[in-house]
């Protein structure tokens, strides 16, 4: 049996190659979040004048959002790729090799993590080019990249779980808007403390996506905020663990081989 790292490396390489060779799926996670960032930072700039708004740059405030939007796009891409493999029989081809189930999952997710890190570097570069100063400095930027990788593991495993359960790319695409709802009912555009509508503030506070965003935001505009970092890393780790367990279970069900 080949070594696990070789198997994971081979499958991750395929995942990255696939993405690189289909710009139509590689570009949206890069371009759309940045386009939305630019539009929002223009249209919602007046928000910074609210008393208690944590920064005078809406661009710096909103830069956190693309990290999560990009991860959501990656979830969909990862899921649809895996579902397509199931539909076309490529998954069966892989099942006939000595590849371990854990390598199938890890290879897929490693590919997503690599792309997630590249996305994070792109968003950081766009921020720096537009004049955003990262309050946590270079170490904060490095931590942000690590955080992006952790978030990619969580969302990548979630996409894999959905693909393994449904076996249908169309179903994954149908679920995508549901995931985006979590983004919209978060603190993506306004700090939770400044949300005037009670029910919305309640939902945003109950929504883990708010804490994922606020972790990134703290590194950009606050500096080293232990509470925000603990909550962000905590929820990202929890998402990764739950999604990985669910995906492993779904893989076991899908992989009927003896």
């Amino acid at each position, binding site marked *: 049996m080949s070594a696990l790292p070789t*198997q994971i490396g*081979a499958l991750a390489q395929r995942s990255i*190659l696939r993405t690189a060779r289909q710009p139509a799926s590689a570009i949206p996670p890069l371009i759309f979040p940045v386009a939305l960032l630019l539009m929002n930072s223009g249209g919602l700039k007046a928000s910074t004048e609210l008393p208690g708004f944590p920064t005078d740059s809406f661009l710096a405030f909103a830069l956190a959002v693309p990290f999560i939007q990009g991860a959501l796009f990656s979830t969909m891409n990862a899921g649809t790729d895996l579902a397509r*493999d199931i539909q076309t*029989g490529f998954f069966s*081809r892989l099942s006939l*090799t*000595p590849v371990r189930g854990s390598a199938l999952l890890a290879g897929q997710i490693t590919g997503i993590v690599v792309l997630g890190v590249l996305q994070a570097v792109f968003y950081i570069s766009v921020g720096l080019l537009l004049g955003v100063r990262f309050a946590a400095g270079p170490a904060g930027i490095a931590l942000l990249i690590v955080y992006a990788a952790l978030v990619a593991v969580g969302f990548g495993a979630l996409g894999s779980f959905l693909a393994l359960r449904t076996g249908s790319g169309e179903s994954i695409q149908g679920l995508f808007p549901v995931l985006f709802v979590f983004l919209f009912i978060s603190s993506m555009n306004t700090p939770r403390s400044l949300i005037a509508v009670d029910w919305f503030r309640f939902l945003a506070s109950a929504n883990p996506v708010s804490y994922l965003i606020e972790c990134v935001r703290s590194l950009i505009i606050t500096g080293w905020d232990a509470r925000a970092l603990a909550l962000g890393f905590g929820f990202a780790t929890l998402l990764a663990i739950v999604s990985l367990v669910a995906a492993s279970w779904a893989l076991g069900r899908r992989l009927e*081989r003896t």
Partner: protein
Amino acid sequence: MPRDNSIVVEQLVREFKKGPRAVDGIDLYVAPGEIYGFLGPNGAGKSTTVLMLTTLLPPTAGTARVGGYDVRKEGPKVRSVIGAALQEAALDPLLTGRDHLKLQTMLQAIPRAERKPRQNELLDRVGLTDAAGRKVGGYSGGMKRRLDLALALVHRPSILFLDEPTTGLDPQSRTALWAEVARLAREDNVTVFLTTQYLEEADVLADRVGIIDHGKIVAEGTPTALKEEIGRPSVHVIPCREEDRPRILSLLTRFGEKLGDDRDLAVRLRDGVGMVDVIRAMDADGVVVDDVELRAPTLDDVFLAKTGRTLEGAATGQDGAPVR
């Protein structure tokens, strides 16, 4: 000790929830180095059998040993000795032919130093060296099937499963694939388990044929023996004038049992009757025809005799295999 590359199946069953008994207690033996043709219409249970023998689907009951290993208890060992090209070449359209072989050599634990030479050897063998750098999405059906075969051979398996390998291929690609499969069996002593809907394929390629219908094996033997079992040849006539058709049919049925539909002028000859008797009778009656042909029994005749249907007529519905 030489590797046991036989396939031994006893009372193998696969039932699906709320579905039919796709495979219903089959027994079969495939000898080392033999090409075994598994023939049957869509939905007969061919693909389900292959999925069980390749460890991708657990049997509901019965036993199967592939390469000496139990498919139920020794899945990884079975997979280490088999290669498989399953229905529809399962390839990634965004990867090149070489990308596929690279991935397969890595997953099959081919030592690093041997990977590139093995890729080149297989690309050369299936005639894809020039197309190796092109994305598979641009390959023809024949090229995809050849790459599929190359991928199945990466780890030098001693048993090869080919599930309808030539479906949808043009005659030239089909013949090339047959030649390669035959070479594998004759020169490399690879045991080949081949499912097909094509009678000609089974006839040309297989040492022995098993015919499956509704999950049960209804006939098994060499193509020649099976056809001899049916025995009698048939005579087929093309009339010169359409108005002679009833007269010719009446004449023909004196010599045997009518075949085909109302439009066909064909009979299966009775024992002791030859083509010469038919021609003499036509001559004596002054019947003029465009053509008279004597046809030896085909595997379709065998299928008809065993199931009451022609293979073509039976080829409706879907296979019981699950969508995976």
